[in-house]
């Protein structure tokens, strides 16, 4: 079981709820992926409360844990206020903390991220920080009070997959006991298997599933890849070698002369 701030879940796939072709497909993708945690956002209500009602009723009917985000926030003040508003609505201390620093890459502003994390942890939030793979930033986030980390492996929605395996290995190796969820940049199930084979605890997906030709099937494919990668990491994988090694015993082979 994966434990996140004391909450135990069996699925290691967290799923975003945006960009699906329809609410029904979103529901099916969540079901088939087996996810127990979905991310949501807060946006301006322009229809007297009626637009939010529909979506919120759908999410509540799933019975999953809800992880609100601060997507789109560019400053500490915006992110902190959005988190506070999310807690008031969703009745959870969980917050996926995003403080965006660059419009093109959606790269986190890690300086603002650490500051916002410190404020929110101080207010009793359980912060899931969306961060880069920078080791020192991760150290600062832990010092700020975060007990879960969500490093990217590539820019949000890019589908590039893990770009810096060395940095990811370093993160995992330096903090083996901190739950780490790879958030953002995954495009294919093989990407998910790769990061799980490195020992990461879970993945958070949205675009790769929602924009797939068949989002429901892709949700299932990612779930299988995550399970395979997780099992492989714990099974102990063979290290690569530069020379060939025969698998069939050499001793006892026939000699035909």
């Amino acid at each position, binding site marked *: 079981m994966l434990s996140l701030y004391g909450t135990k879940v069996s699925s290691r796939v967290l799923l975003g709820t945006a960009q699906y072709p329809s609410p029904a497909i979103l529901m099916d993708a969540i079901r088939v992926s087996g996810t127990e945690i979905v991310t*949501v*956002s807060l946006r301006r*209500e322009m229809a*007297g*409360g009626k*637009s939010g009602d529909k979506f919120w009723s759908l999410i509540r009917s799933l019975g999953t844990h809800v992880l609100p985000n601060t997507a789109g926030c560019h400053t500490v003040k915006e992110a902190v206020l959005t988190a506070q508003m999310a807690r*008031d*609505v*969703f009745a959870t201390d969980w917050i996926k903390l995003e403080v965006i620093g660059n419009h093109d890459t959606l790269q986190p502003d890690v300086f603002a991220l650490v500051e916002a994390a410190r404020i929110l942890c101080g207010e009793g939030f359980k912060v899931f920080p969306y961060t880069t793979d920078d080791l020192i930033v991760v150290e600062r986030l832990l010092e700020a009070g975060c007990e879960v980390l969500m490093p990217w492996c590539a820019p949000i929605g890019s589908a590039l997959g893990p770009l810096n395996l060395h940095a990811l290995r370093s993160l995992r190796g330096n903090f083996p006991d901190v739950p780490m969820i790879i958030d953002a940049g995954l495009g294919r199930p093989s990407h998910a298997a790769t990061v799980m084979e490195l020992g990461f605890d879970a993945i958070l997906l949205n675009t790769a599933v929602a924009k797939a030709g068949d989002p429901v099937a892709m949700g299932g494919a990612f779930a299988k890849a995550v399970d395979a990668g997780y099992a492989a990491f714990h099974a102990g994988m063979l290290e690569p070698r530069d020379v060939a090694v025969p698998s069939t015993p050499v001793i006892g082979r026939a000699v035909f002369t």
Partner: protein
Amino acid sequence: MKLLVNGEPHEVSAQSLDALLAELEFEGEWLATAVNSELVRATERQDCLLSEGDRIEILTPKQGG
């Protein structure tokens, strides 16, 4: 009183945030509110008195990644 609600100018008679939501026909326990970039919890709206030019944000759950 003139207010800015979700970025749009509004002329309202409501004096409190609670009354403003009713006047603009916002309803639902899933709404989050802030006045001048400060959180106003659902339980505090009745006591939150508004002033000319206040900036109100009314947010609601939406899809997110």
